[in-house]
């Protein structure tokens, strides 16, 4: 897997395209604390890219840089072959990047349907006047988007809780609703921050299946952070390993697994 390769086939027959997003020498500091130190990696079109590392390695900070919450002091973010200027999160969202959060960030006061519908906000364009009158344009747009949302709801098998307020749902379902909201935006790049945290084995299997299906059916590029090594090694095409804000490994799951630095970071090194 050389960077020069335009596209290639994975062992299971999916096509992975050229570079979609490239992080170049990103450094992020909070005062004297260096959260990310000179990290470069790329995300290719159609792949599942995992970011792993011990706690406090800077994985979530990296995701926050991609989604525009943090602005790195040094380094550049390249998206679709051009350098991305410093952007606010909502501008990043409009570029086709959606994400989920480590600790669920749903709108508790709204129903599941409304939550997923918010995922379509970037696509809904009617002005306030048209909406106030509702007839015609606004209603038509609402219906069109509702159809798209219902497809996502079907896909993630949450039809039965459509009208339930999100606050009443159990944890596993909330995670799924959050994924639905991100998917409703039809993103080109989907960022998942620990999609399986706090789940039991069965729920993890369900979630893994959904992630693979999303990648397979919609061709969505996925970057995910996850602590469950079994899941990461099974799902992802390539893995970035971070430790203390530095990149210590990058490559296919097998390459990463046999990387001495990675083993040291996870298992510790004998100091003699």
């Amino acid at each position, binding site marked *: 897997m050389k960077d020069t390769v335009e596209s290639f086939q994975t062992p299971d027959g999916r096509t992975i395209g050229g570079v979609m997003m490239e992080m170049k020498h990103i450094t992020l500091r909070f005062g004297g604390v260096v959260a990310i130190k000179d990290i470069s990696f790329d995300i290719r079109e159609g792949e599942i890219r995992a970011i792993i590392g011990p706690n406090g390695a800077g994985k979530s900070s990296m995701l926050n840089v991609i*989604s525009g*919450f943090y602005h790195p002091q040094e380094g550049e973010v390249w998206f679709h072959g051009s350098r991305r200027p410093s952007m*606010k*999160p*909502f501008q990043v*969202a*409009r570029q086709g990047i*959606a*994400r989920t*959060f480590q600790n669920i*960030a*749903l*709108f*508790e*006061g*709204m129903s599941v349907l*409304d939550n997923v*519908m*918010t*995922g*379509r*906000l*970037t696509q*809904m364009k*009617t002005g*306030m006047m048209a*909406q*106030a*009158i*509702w007839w015609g344009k*606004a*209603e038509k*747009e*609402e*219906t069109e988007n*509702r*159809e798209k949302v*219902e497809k996502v709801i079907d896909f993630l098998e949450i039809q039965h809780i459509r009208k339930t307020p999100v606050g009443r749902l159990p944890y596993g379902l909330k995670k799924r609703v959050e994924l639905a*909201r*991100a998917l409703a*935006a039809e993103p080109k790049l989907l960022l998942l921050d620990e999609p399986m945290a706090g789940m039991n084995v069965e729920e993890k299997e369900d979630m893994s299946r959904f992630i693979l299906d999303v990648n397979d059916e919609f061709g969505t590029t996925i970057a995910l952070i996850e602590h469950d090594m079994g899941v990461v090694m099974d799902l992802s095409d390539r893995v970035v390993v971070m430790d203390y804000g530095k990149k210590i490994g990058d490559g296919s799951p097998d390459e990463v697994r046999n990387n001495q630095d990675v083993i040291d970071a996870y298992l510790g090194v004998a100091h003699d």
Partner: protein
Amino acid sequence: MFYREAGDFSTTYPQDSQTFPIRFDRYRYYAVLVIAFAVVPFIINDYWLNAIFLPFLIYSIAAIGLNILVGYCGQVSLGTGGFMAVGAYSCYKFMTGVDIWLMGADGQMIQYALPPINIFFSVILAGLVTAAVGVLFGLPSLRIKGFYLAVATLAAQFFLVWLFNKWEWAYNYSASGQINAPTRGFLGVDVTGPATEAWATYLFCLMFVIGSAVLARNLTRGSVGRKWMAIRDMDIAAEIIGVNPLRAKLSAFAVSSFFVGVSGALFFSVYLGAVEVGEAFGIQKSFLVLFMIIIGGLGSIFGSFAGAAFMVLLPVLLKNTLVGTLGWPTDLAAHIEFIIVGALIVVFLILEPHGLAQLWRVAKEKLRLWPFPY
């Protein structure tokens, strides 16, 4: 038994997202409309109009407006009284003819008075002016939240009242500092001034109430409403799905202030007729409308009506009972009334913190199954 949703199937998405998806609700709504338009105007008299209907209708509009800001967008505001004053004074200027200073050809300033505008359009224009002022005072919301924002909007309240006390142009240089609504008609019927018919003013206000409720409902069920609610529930997540917080918050301030301004305009022109700003639009008014939406239910259009009805009807009811039925002295009754209203509010908020709208929702759940326990 009385309230059924069985057998009511939505087969299209528009059907599913309509305001009253359940047939029973829909018929009840039509029934209320028919009574309001076709029955009440024939039986209404001055007492019912001034004690109950006008305040209820006008406060409903204000409550809908504030509910959009506080209940739907989560931005606390204590400036309602001030914004109502903006509505009242701009309505006054529009209905008496705005005088503006223009630079003449020879460099001299000449005063030019626009012709008076029809009262209907004056009220709407007053709403638009208030919307602009609301956006201006909504700017701090981009930086501050919660209680701190409430304090910032309190500044709007005091500043606006002060402004309309001092700025003589706003009250047409009248000696008393008051504004008086001249006689104005709509469709050939007088709706402001000293000699109006009860049914005419009632229908005039009702029209605005229905209009406001429909517009507010449409806004809150579509994408604009979802943006507001997203900001309310979790602003970080709202931003990540593409909501521009600046536009969402300011649009909430604009729409909210529009309705509050319309209500202020009607409060002055149709209801009171003469207004002294500190008295009519003081801080008490801000709190009154805030209580209405808290008691009625935040984030609910029905709650705005319920809250307005509660706060308007309860004092009238108490007064009639204490003075009329029990024969207590008026001054004693007035004080007892305060105590009872206050105590009821406290009791009510402890028992049902989500307001009358929630009570209604619970009642509907129960009615669905009645007479069976589950």
